[in-house]
């Protein structure tokens, strides 16, 4: 009874806020307490997920509106039936596909798998302002939180830039350059990364994958649900370009060992040596800026970091 009421209240608060941010341009940050959700989701269930059949059919324009290639007309949905008289086959898998979405001037290069409340993405965005990054999160309301957070941050950045410009104009000097990125390079999607990573990303599209504080699935029976496994690592290798890095961090020592063991055993990966790991600016951000990282800090827990480099495939 009480739980129902609380849930209803939360939903009401979320909806009010989302309306405000979309219609009235409010740039106040969303409040996490209205978006809380059970920390676990079953990756094997079907859910009600939206994903493109092929990466070429992914419409990124709503996630990264500032990167849409402007001069292209959006095409009408179509399903082309192959013509029996056409001898030459299509040159791309998408040509027989129903939809040609708007193109972006850049591709997503960084994926945060299980991005949670988006702390890492928000911290990374100004650090790598010219790189598109995408958070993937399976929980609905947590995804909404990150969406709202990005909206609010973009609105804030825009407003700050406008204010600075107005001030500069009043003072008669040239305006200062806007803050790097202005959070235009961050996006979030509700997705089951264990199943549908190749629906979003093409072979070798990514340069970095972050796996931060994943669900440890303590019970041995649940180990198969872990985000790192011998077979899933092949999919990470597929979407990562050679030289790309998988970043992992956890506060659970056994899970750390598990991840290290499975990545080191996979022929497509090698562990990044510690000096190089510590020199990577992303590692510091991962340690301090993720929501879980902060929580572990408060509880004085340990943080275990491991990085793995995607190797070139051998000849075949």
């Amino acid at each position: 009874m009480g739980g129902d009421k609380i849930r209803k209240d939360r939903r009401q608060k979320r909806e009010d806020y989302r309306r405000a941010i979309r219609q009235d341009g409010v740039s106040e940050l969303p409040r996490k307490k209205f978006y809380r959700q059970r920390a676990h989701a079953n990756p094997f269930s079907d859910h009600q997920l939206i994903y493109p059949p092929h990466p070429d059919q992914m419409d990124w324009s709503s996630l990264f509106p500032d990167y849409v290639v402007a001069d292209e007309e959006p095409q009408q949905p179509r399903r082309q039936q192959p013509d029996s008289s056409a001898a030459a086959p299509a040159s791309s898998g998408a040509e027989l596909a129903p939809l040609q979405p708007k193109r972006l001037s850049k591709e997503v290069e960084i994926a945060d798998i299980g991005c949670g409340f988006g702390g890492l993405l928000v911290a990374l965005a100004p650090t790598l302002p010219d790189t598109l990054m995408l958070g993937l999160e399976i929980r609905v309301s947590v995804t909404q939180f990150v969406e709202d957070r990005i909206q609010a941050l973009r609105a804030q950045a825009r407003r700050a830039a406008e204010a600075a410009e107005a001030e500069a104009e009043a003072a008669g000097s040239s305006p200062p350059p806007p803050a790097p990125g202005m959070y235009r390079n961050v996006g979030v999607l509700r997705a089951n990364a264990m199943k549908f990573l190749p629906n979003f990303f093409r072979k070798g599209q990514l340069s970095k994958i972050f796996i931060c504080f994943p669900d440890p699935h303590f019970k041995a029976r649940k180990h198969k649900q872990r985000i790192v496994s011998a077979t899933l690592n092949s999919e990470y290798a597929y979407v990562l370009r050679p030289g790309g890095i998988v970043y992992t961090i956890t506060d659970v020592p056994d899970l750390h060992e598990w991840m290290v063991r499975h990545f080191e055993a996979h022929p497509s990966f090698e562990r990044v040596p510690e000096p190089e790991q510590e020199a990577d600016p992303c590692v510091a951000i991962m340690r301090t800026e993720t929501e879980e990282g902060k929580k572990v800090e408060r509880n004085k827990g340990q943080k275990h970091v491991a990085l793995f480099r995607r190797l070139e495939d051998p000849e075949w």
Partner: protein
Amino acid sequence: MVAFPYHLVKACGGIVFAAQGSDIHSFNSRLEHVSTWTYPHQHAAEATRPAEEAQDSPAPEGPPAKRRRVEDGDDATAPNGHGQQPSSNGQPRGSKAAQYDNPANERAFLQGLYATADGRHLIAITGCDKTIWVFEHDGAGHLKELSRRAMPKRPCALTLTRDNRTILSADKFGDVYALPLIPAAAPTPDSTSSPAAATPAALTPTIPLSRSETPVILRPEANELTVHTKRNLRALENQKISLERKAAREAEQLEPSRPRFEHALLLGHVSMLTAIAVGVAPSSSSSSSDPAAKTREYIVTADRDEHIRVSRGIPQAHVIEGFCLGHEDFVSRLCIAPGGREELLLSGGGDDDVLVWDWRGGRLLARAPVLQHVKQVKGLEEATKVAVTRVFATSKWHVTTDGTERTLVFIVAERVPALLVYELWPDNTLQHRCNIPLPGNPLDLDVLEGETSGPGNTSCRLVVALDPTQKGSSSATTEAEEEPGCRRRRATLMFMDNAGDEGKLVPVENLPAAGGADIGEAELHRLLYTTEALRKLTDYE
């Protein structure tokens, strides 16, 4: 109660093997019955006992890894309560049987029939005990059981590597395992704990750590620093206590969590696998000068989540070469085109079309409508969806259209009483040729190659297993089917010769009597028609 129809067909040398429930019948090239292999129900009951009991038995194949709640599969009653007679081994029937609504878990039922290229080995899958059976075939239709291997999860489909020496088994959990066709003579206890050690080089697992591998844990993986609430701390305490107890138990007996035979995890999807195929393409390696080494093997796997994945073959199966993405519903069948068109892959499933791919490049080349032609079958004019169960291309059977030879492709859709015949054209399109109506729902088909009676003129015989339906007698191709209420005499195995009239299938006469196992109609349907169930429920909304 009805008899099992024939539901699987496999041509193997000059012999046709056809599965009926849990029996495998063999027929010679004139389709005369030769012999029958019967599933050893008694053994199955033993094998499904808890592992601890079975471990004492000297069975070299080893018991299945997991304890299963299985009634004797032979005569388990349909959940609708038909028949209360005791089962064959005299034990009273457990009332629990009714609570399982998937008969495939309970009843011995052959789920797949495969043959090596030389026809000397036949491989079968049974679902209830997750077992892969390998038989030696003497070339005349007699089978000798060579091995019986219970897999960690139920195999959904399997295929063989190009050299016909390794079985690739794709399972319900999404993993693909490699296992030798002929297992090593005597698996020692050592080889069970580390299968890699006893494995020949070709089978060395490319992924040494299996996803399902569970190391013996003697302490909880969480610690006081990783749990933050009072309740979780209490749970952690309890966990420690229970793990200590478990460790004490396990010290006495070996953990029976692994099958005791050579097997290697090659790759895996996080989805139920539905089909697997092996393709061969030119090697991308520039250095090889040996012409024999210029082609490479690839493993193509399809799953319920619309994916078709192309991985390298052994020993680089961990490398994903690409995906063939474009299906918008489950994929249930893969077929590499035969006859010099091996660069093409045909795939069917829950979509309205069958897709033609350049599988090596992951490019969609053509779509061939299936639903459209299913609607032309009498009684199915209002069909709104289709579930493809077979895509069968044969290079043995050529048709000539406009003076050029085309490969024939037979497509079967679930509960559609017709064969849909297509031609694979040189421009990589798949063109509908005709529908062949049948007096029942086709379940499986294969082509038996006969004697060559002249240059380039091989006689071929298409053999179809079907589930005779009461109503679907529109074609009236047989007289036998008109006998009212006598379903078991109705045609369940039919054939058509390439020399004969196209579109006319003839029932095989004098089929051996069914092995006594009768089954409720509802249960039978749940065993035979499993493909539509792969569709996600959300699709209906």
